[in-house]
């Protein structure tokens, strides 16, 4: 049944693009600010709740909510860097980790207090529609979701490639001291970067509600998923994050067919361990 396999793989790849967008948020932040955002998944869950709330209260499509959710997350990320993370930038890795882990705990607890432990989903008018392309059947939601992820990622690439601010941020990431010397406002650029990273995962969260239901404890799972993707693609590499997302989307789909579905994340981790061992800098990462 090659068509069945093809369907599963394509569906995996489409989900992989959303994973990739989420991981992009992590990668951008690490690449420039040099902070591993251990509260990544928890922030994303916040974005998912916000989207669900808007969709259910206002009857909007998640993709229409996306810009608002992304903007909210941008502000959150900007302030987080400015008022909290900036203060631990000079501390050793384990202190930064603990602060981010504490933040993650607090966020999960906050979602639990605000939204309760129940699972919340959205109902889409086109939830059961699909496109038929030859022998392939593509879920409409997945196609929309993946397209949205690609558009956001594309905008981000364009921003970093062509805008003056984007170039300044990249310069900061490449050479912190150099950026200071040429008079860039590094503190502000770091906060901007964190905001943009958060915006990315906010957009990913808004899209993600189209595929799965939201509950407060999803955070760690998404954090780990983003780690796997980002290391796979190469920490700090933007294209690597998208590629890593695709690879993980594929591998999860494949593992779901070949093994038990419950083993699919074991498959991803195994993949990650193999990559770390043969190419520690990741698929598209630069050698340190």
């Amino acid at each position: 049944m090659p068509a069945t396999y093809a369907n599963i793989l394509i569906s995996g790849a489409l989900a992989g693009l959303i994973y990739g967008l989420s991981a992009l948020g992590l990668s951008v932040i690490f690449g420039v600010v040099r902070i591993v955002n251990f509260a990544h998944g928890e922030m994303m869950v916040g974005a998912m709740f916000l989207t669900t709330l808007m969709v259910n209260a206002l009857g909007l499509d998640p993709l229409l909510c996306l810009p608002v959710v992304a903007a909210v997350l941008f502000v959150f990320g900007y302030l987080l860097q400015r008022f909290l993370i900036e203060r631990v930038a000079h501390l050793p890795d384990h202190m930064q980790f603990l602060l981010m882990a504490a933040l993650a705990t607090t966020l999960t607890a906050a979602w639990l207090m605000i939204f309760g432990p129940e699972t919340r989903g959205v109902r889409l008018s086109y939830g059961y529609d699909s496109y038929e392309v030859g022998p392939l059947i593509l879920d409409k939601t997945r196609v929309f979701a993946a397209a949205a992820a690609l558009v956001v990622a594309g905008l981000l690439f364009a921003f970093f490639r062509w805008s003056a601010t984007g170039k300044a941020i990249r310069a900061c990431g490449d050479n912190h001291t150099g950026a200071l010397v040429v008079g860039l406002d590094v503190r502000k650029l770091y906060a901007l970067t964190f905001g943009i990273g958060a915006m990315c995962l906010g957009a990913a969260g808004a899209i993600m509600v189209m595929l799965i239901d939201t509950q407060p404890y999803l955070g760690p799972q998404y954090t780990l998923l983003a780690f796997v993707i980002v290391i796979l693609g190469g920490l700090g590499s933007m294209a690597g994050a998208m590629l890593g997302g695709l690879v993980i989307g594929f591998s999860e789909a494949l593992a779901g067919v070949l093994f038990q579905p419950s083993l699919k994340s074991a498959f991803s981790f195994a993949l990650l361990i193999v990559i770390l061992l043969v190419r520690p800098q990741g698929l598209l990462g630069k050698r340190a």
Partner: protein
Amino acid sequence: MIETMLAGAPRRALVALALLLSALVAAPLFVNAYALSVLILALYYAYTGQAWNMMIGFAGLLSLGEAMFVGLGAYASAGLFQKFGVPPVLGLFLSVAVSAAAGAAVGWLAFRFDINGVYFALLTIAFSEFTRILVDNWAYLGGSEGLFLHVSGLAGWDIVNLRGSPVMFYYVLLAMTSGMFLLCRYLLASRLGYYWRAIREDQDAARSLGVDVFACKMAAVTISSGAAGLAGVVYAFYYNNLFPETAFALSHSIDMLLGAVVGGVGTLFGPIFGALLLTPLGEALTAATDGLRLPGVKQFFWGVVVAAIVLARPTGLWPMIAGALGLDKVGLDKVDADEKSGR
């Protein structure tokens, strides 16, 4: 050996240590069952925090997969006991061996390529999660349904089978924590301890002085994970049930390193102090927020408290307190200051 361990320790610190130990030995006579359970937890975190500290504080290796080593140790001895009737007093050797082997495997894979810092931390998380999912799917050891130990005779003191009252577990953990403290003290004062600290500060400089960086890191990760495996034995037999979801959880790792970080990474007494401080604090927070009947409120404040401590005292609380009490010459770091006036 004893001479190296005592080197530089001022009498004042030794007296304070003896007082603390006596208080801890006598504690079960004076506290109720609940307080004892809190103390047991505190000692468990003191011990595991110390084991974790050996890697990060001494050798500069950030492991975020401590739960894997504890979990493997727990499953090894619990499995032997439950499936083959092997008492934990023998099973612990397998526990230590399995955990140490896991640590050595992770270390060997990472250090060959000089994977350090954040990358090493993420690798340990990956291995930990990988193990969790595997055990979750391993029906023989209960899988996600959990592994349950026979519960029998919870009153006596069956050390061989680790079946007995909480008081027994308390003293077992107290002995382990004391032993771990002495081991760390000995290692820090040894050549290996010097080499670890040198590697922590500058790997290239250490190499240029003849330090076999790979071997020393392997020693750190192997000893530390083996020690964590031993904690796993107590974890399994104290709780009598094991679930991959909790034993191998990242949050379990975080709980273990919390005390050490708050107490002071790299210090000898910091992990013990941190665990003895934080565990009751966590319990108090639970008690204080219990009445609110709002799920999540305890974790919320817990996160805030931890973040506040990190921001306020990035080097941990112990160095400050030790300084205030005049005990800060316990650490070897200050031995030189003594020698200046003495020798």
